[in-house]
């Protein structure tokens, strides 16, 4: 199978205009003679309806590269959804940013507050303030769309604000496998051939009524006119929860599902295959095993014959109340069995990052998924995400991918554990610190000798003696 490369659409501003030269070489042939007058009017009307609420977004994003925290200016798109100034965009546009600037259709610039983000669906909500009502879009029903229907993609491709492109819905429910963590597990995607480029991220996909049916978020790199949008109906639920609670809370059962065709061609077979059960999860403890077929979740029948039906099953699990028992009705060896399992809260999609400048390295919190890959029992430890070349961490032999299990003799359970321990090392100007780290199946000791980092200590001493 061809590997998917789902590229997020935000783009760094400094690359934004380099392609302009290319553009001049493109000759627009034929104009739009194929559109009847009526269709032309509808395209115009739809564009005009949404354009006032279209937002050009310039976030200052925090990125952790080569053991250092840096800030980069990027560009994305968004749209206003209420008169009081709520804006919807992608999580990958507005998440992990220190500032988010919004430029509206009237060219006014507003610094926005990030109300909340949901990396699982790649949705973010921003808020801007003003003493007048903002123009806003109307949501459409994404379940009512059809393949072949005309749509407009609006936003800031490569930083070019107020751009509109026209196309059709190519497929209304494209299943994208979760390659490199770029795909939402809880929804299928709207595939469109309307031109979508980096920078279109977070912009609206609009039907000819001028309603927003999706949020443009992905494109297939190396392909042409293969863009993907988050369906409006999924996005709306997420937006509502973010506005009400600041985040989205989901349930988890520790189960990985697979379509029924992975085990049988029999069209009458109902249910969904359980492919994997996370060790230590409540489901595992209750006795659920890979190969079981889930046929009912509480009272709801579950079924996924093809992979396109899997997101709905995952969403049904996610929508269960957290921390409450649910009955799983499974089929095993032709017999029905019931298991009562208490749902757990779905863990964070990605871990927090932190920079430790004296040692010249960055850490990221371990998610359960990363911990499982590392064969760690429980979720203890923190992952080294980068080491600054020439820094103390790098020269002491710490490498990206190491998981720190202990500092001196104290186990490191979380990023905040490590931050506290590190703080006291710095405050006490401790010369030697021992880290016990794991990489793959191997563990080893890494000794950080702060007496070597003369420059930073010297600077401090000089400062200490300034009266």
């Amino acid at each position, binding site marked *: *199978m061809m590997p998917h490369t789902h590229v997020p659409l935000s783009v760094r501003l400094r690359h934004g205009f380099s392609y302009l030269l290319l553009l001049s070489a493109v000759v627009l042939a034929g104009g739009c003679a194929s559109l009847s007058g009526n269709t032309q009017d509808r395209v115009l009307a739809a564009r005009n309806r949404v354009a006032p609420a279209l937002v050009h977004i310039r976030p200052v994003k925090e990125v952790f590269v080569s053991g250092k925290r840096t800030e980069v200016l990027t560009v994305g798109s968004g749209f206003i959804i209420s008169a009081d100034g709520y804006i919807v965009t992608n999580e990958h546009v507005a998440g992990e940013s220190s500032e988010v600037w919004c430029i509206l259709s009237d060219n006014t610039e507003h610094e926005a507050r990030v109300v909340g983000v949901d990396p699982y669906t790649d949705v973010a909500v921003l808020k801007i303030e003003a003493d007048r009502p903002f123009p806003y879009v109307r949501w459409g029903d994404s379940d009512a769309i059809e393949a072949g229907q005309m749509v407009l993609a609006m936003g800031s491709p490569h930083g070019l604000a107020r751009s509109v492109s026209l196309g059709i819905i190519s497929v209304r429910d494209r299943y994208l496998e979760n390659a490199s963590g770029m795909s939402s597990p809880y929804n299928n995607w709207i595939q469109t051939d309307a031109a979508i480029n980096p920078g279109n991220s977070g912009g609206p996909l609009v039907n000819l009524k001028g309603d927003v049916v999706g949020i443009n978020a992905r494109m297939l790199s190396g392909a042409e006119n293969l863009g993907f949008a988050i369906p409006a109906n999924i996005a709306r639920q997420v937006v509502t929860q973010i506005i009400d609670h600041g985040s989205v809370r989901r349930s988890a059962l520790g189960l*990985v599902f*697979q379509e029924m*065709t*992975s*085990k049988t061609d029999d069209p009458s077979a109902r249910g969904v*295959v359980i*492919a*994997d059960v996370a060790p230590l999860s409540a489901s595992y403890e209750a006795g659920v095993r*890979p*190969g079981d077929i889930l046929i009912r979740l509480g009272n709801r029948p579950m079924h996924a014959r093809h992979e396109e039906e899997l997101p709905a099953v995952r969403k049904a699990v996610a929508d269960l109340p957290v921390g409450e028992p649910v009955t799983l009705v499974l089929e095993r060896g032709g017999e029905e069995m019931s298991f009562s399992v208490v749902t757990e809260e779905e863990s964070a999609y990605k871990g927090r990052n932190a920079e430790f400048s004296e040692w010249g390295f960055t850490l990221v919190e371990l998610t359960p*998924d990363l911990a*499982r*890959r*590392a*064969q760690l029992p429980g979720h203890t430890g923190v992952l080294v995400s980068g080491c600054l070349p020439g820094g103390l961490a790098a020269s002491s032999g710490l490498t990206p991918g190491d998981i720190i299990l202990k500092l001196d003799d104290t186990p490191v359970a979380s990023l905040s554990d490590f931050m506290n321990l590190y703080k006291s090392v710095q405050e006490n100007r401790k010369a*030697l610190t*021992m880290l*016990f780290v794991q990489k*793959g*199946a*191997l*563990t*080893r*000791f890494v*000794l950080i*000798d702060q007496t070597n980092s003369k420059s930073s200590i010297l600077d401090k001493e000089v400062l200490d003696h300034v009266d």
Partner: protein
Amino acid sequence: MSIKSFLPFALCLSVLLFSGSGFSFEQEMLQRAYDTISPALCVLTFTQETTDPRSGEQIRQNGFAVALNVSAEGLLLTNGHLQRDNVQSFNFRVTFRIDGKEQSYPAVLLKKPDDLNVSLLRLQSETPLTLPYVRFSTDAGLSLGEPVAILGIMGETLDFNRAIQEDRIISVLDAPRSTYCLGGQLKMGFVTGPVINRRGQVVGITGFDLAVAEGGEFFSRSGVPLVYQASLFEKHIASPPDQTQESVEAEEAWLGVFTQPLKEEFARYWNIPEAGGLIVSTVIPDSPAAAVGIVPGDIIRAFDGHPIRAIHDRDVLAFTQMVKEKAPGSEVEITLLRNGEELALTATLGHRPRAAQDADEYEDEHLGMVVREITRDLRILLNLGEEVQGVIVRRVVSGSAAQAARIQPGLIIMSMNSATIRDLDDYKEAAQFFKQDKPDEITLFVRAGAQTGFLRLRPRW
């Protein structure tokens, strides 16, 4: 012009003339070396099948290399790159050129020495042979800057003519073993070429170590041409290894720890008065070390009566060698430092587990894939817990049922229909059963990375 101004010039000249014999070879000497040694230089032709470790795609091609005969009955040294993890070489033929006449013999590859990137071949002949061969001087070392001559064979277009080139030793490494680095480029036909010093002694052969990317476990200094001095392979000539095909059970001992040297600052951290020793960094589960209760952080200070005072990273290799050379099953005393206290333990060494490159494989022609056992080193490399049992897919035949089912190299097969697959024997048994039963499809329970799932496969019977 006074005569004085000529003087320094004359001096220079005379120095040059003297050094002529000191820093390079005389033509007469080179001719003599060429005449005596080149009859032992042979052209080795073979067929090689290389497997792309990712795609499983196999490419077959014919190749040639230089082989050097070291015994009258026909024992040859050649480039160790013939025997790599993803390479299979066969159809060996060795051609001698003696007095302008060519004589050609089939040959078999012997088991590769595990301490040197050199392969050995034995000639096959029904009649006893008396062939020209090279005698090495095992006591002659080389020194920095010393010139050497190397014999080699030129390419097919130059009729495989024998040739000689001069080079110089640019570096002498003393650890982890004596190695000499050559300054020049080594042309294709000069790898495994005999290396001659100014006294006309054959002191070794040229070669390259394997890089990690090539599946090498040798001391990795690939890229720089080396001289393997004769003392390194003397023992392999005196008692040649068995044939590769009869894979012999490794008789090396094993403790089951990974270690790092107790450097000065580590000793300072732990308040150990004297640096030197091996810090246990990892203990392999179910190993002799685990059985005797060794834990990470223990510091090995003596092994079987020998004090361990490792300071450098390379000292770890010497310890590995020390353990290997013990007899499996033997009891050894290990002195440890644990939390500053000295502790003596008696460990019973085990058999060193088989490496992935020696792992048993099974080619399933009906499903179109090759699977192999999960060896200890693969378990460590892939970070697989003890609970993961099965066989690992090594190759997938292009266009096969296995490829159609999206099976990829690296996938671990844990069950087939109702049969649990714990090891290669289980797989063979299941494959045997399917061959008779001929099911329309087989459902596999597999593991890819940290996640499990199901695959359906439609065999072509």
